[in-house]
């Protein structure tokens, strides 16, 4: 499965929130161009694991190496490392005081130091990739949820990350808006982007994922290609989880 050095390598991740032991020694290793899907019941620790991968959450112990950079090393410039890791959030988190274009250009200008014209050219190209260049001058609240999420994807890919993290990207969307976001994600995958996706979109996982991890109670219970996870699940907890999904 792994061809070449992994882009993302998280090993032995533990995370405590006070007395709560949310991650109990999790490994997540992602190869270049791979799409890894993380599924599991709410509270299983999947979002926390994802947030450990760019240190939005500080792991209590373990190691996280992204593109050869040790994220947990005190000497690591975390801001420089995060530029290589795109993240898309459940609640979009677009900046409401800036247009779509402003949202995409902000980090290009203030972090990478690009000039206005260059940043805007990059941003227009990124918005074009998510099919929203005509909304460049719209403010987030003038956009639908699906459009906001696509702008958020453009904001992340404009920085040319080596890996993209998606934290339940469609969970806050009305059902009719989910398709547009998944289409953008699929195109991103086809362009060779390495992706880690936490989501309940099982149809998308079946169709697009290289590998699926099933998490429960802070542990990876089972992992494998989608055909195996959805076709012949072994763990009783995974079977129960899939049965539960089928009922809805």
């Amino acid at each position: 499965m792994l061809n070449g050095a992994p882009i993302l390598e998280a090993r032995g991740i533990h995370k405590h929130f006070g007395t709560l032991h949310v991650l109990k020694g999790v490994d997540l290793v992602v190869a270049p161009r791979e799409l890894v899907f993380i599924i599991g019941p709410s509270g299983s620790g999947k979002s926390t694991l994802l947030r450990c991968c760019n240190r939005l959450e500080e792991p209590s112990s373990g190691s996280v190496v992204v593109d050869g950079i040790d994220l947990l090393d005190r000497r690591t410039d975390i801001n420089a490392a995060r530029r290589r890791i795109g993240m898309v959030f459940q609640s979009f988190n677009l900046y409401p005081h800036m247009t779509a274009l402003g949202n995409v250009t902000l980090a290009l200008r203030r972090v990478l130091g690009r000039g206005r014209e260059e940043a805007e050219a990059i941003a227009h190209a990124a918005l074009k990739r998510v099919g929203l260049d005509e909304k460049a001058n719209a403010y987030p609240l003038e956009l639908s949820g699906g459009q906001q999420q696509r702008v958020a994807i453009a904001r992340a890919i404009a920085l040319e990350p080596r890996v993209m993290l998606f934290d339940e990207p469609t969970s806050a969307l009305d059902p009719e808006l989910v398709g547009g976001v998944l289409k953008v994600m699929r195109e991103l995958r086809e362009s060779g982007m390495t992706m880690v996706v936490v989501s309940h979109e099982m149809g998308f996982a079946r169709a697009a994922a290289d590998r699926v991890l099933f998490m429960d109670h802070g542990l990876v219970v089972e992992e494998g290609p989608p055909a195996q996870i959805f076709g012949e699940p072994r763990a009783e907890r995974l079977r129960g989880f899939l049965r539960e999904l089928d009922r809805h």
Partner: protein
Amino acid sequence: MTNWDNFVFTFFNARVMAEYLPRIIDGFFLTVGLAALIVASGLALGLGLAVIRSFRVRPLNWLIVFLVDLFRALPPLVIIVLIYFGLPPIGLAPSGFVSTWLALTFVLAAFAEEIFWAGILAVPKGQWEAARSTGMSFARTLLWVVLPQAVRLTIPPLTNRTIAITKGTALGSVVAVAEILSQASAGVSFSSNPSPLTLGAIAYLVLFVPVVAFGRWVETRFAWRR
């Protein structure tokens, strides 16, 4: 004389008003200058303190909270008098103008810091996370993402507080600042007629009604659709 004539003679005495109008105008411009200084330095200092507080250095934050509570608790007049009469013994002799400016700056800064701080806290955590995830530093995130939103949220309470405190320039009359109220009450004493005070009230309206209207305009200008 009828009651009406009596009323007009007392409060709208044209002869007295004409005589004291130039002084009230002098007081008006002095008040405008003093108020502008207080607004500029008070808001800047308040914003600066709120920004420092957001870095959450504990001893520094205790100091800020202590000073802010102190200046919110003390009556502004007490602070003015303390600066004006309290500093000369240690070798500093601020004028009445400087004492009033400093005192009201500290009071406005204290209230403004609390308002800006509340605004910073009101910006959702997701905004910080989104910006930090693109590699922006804490300081850049604060400057470009959080403060613009925090300041918009704080404009209505900030406008009200700013107006309330700049009206405190009238307290400068106690330490011989020749602002509107001081000129007006001097006029009342000299002429034995309250009409200069009417002029003073009009001068305050001329000064603050536009400020209130400006606050309203800023509120709509900086609002964005939710």
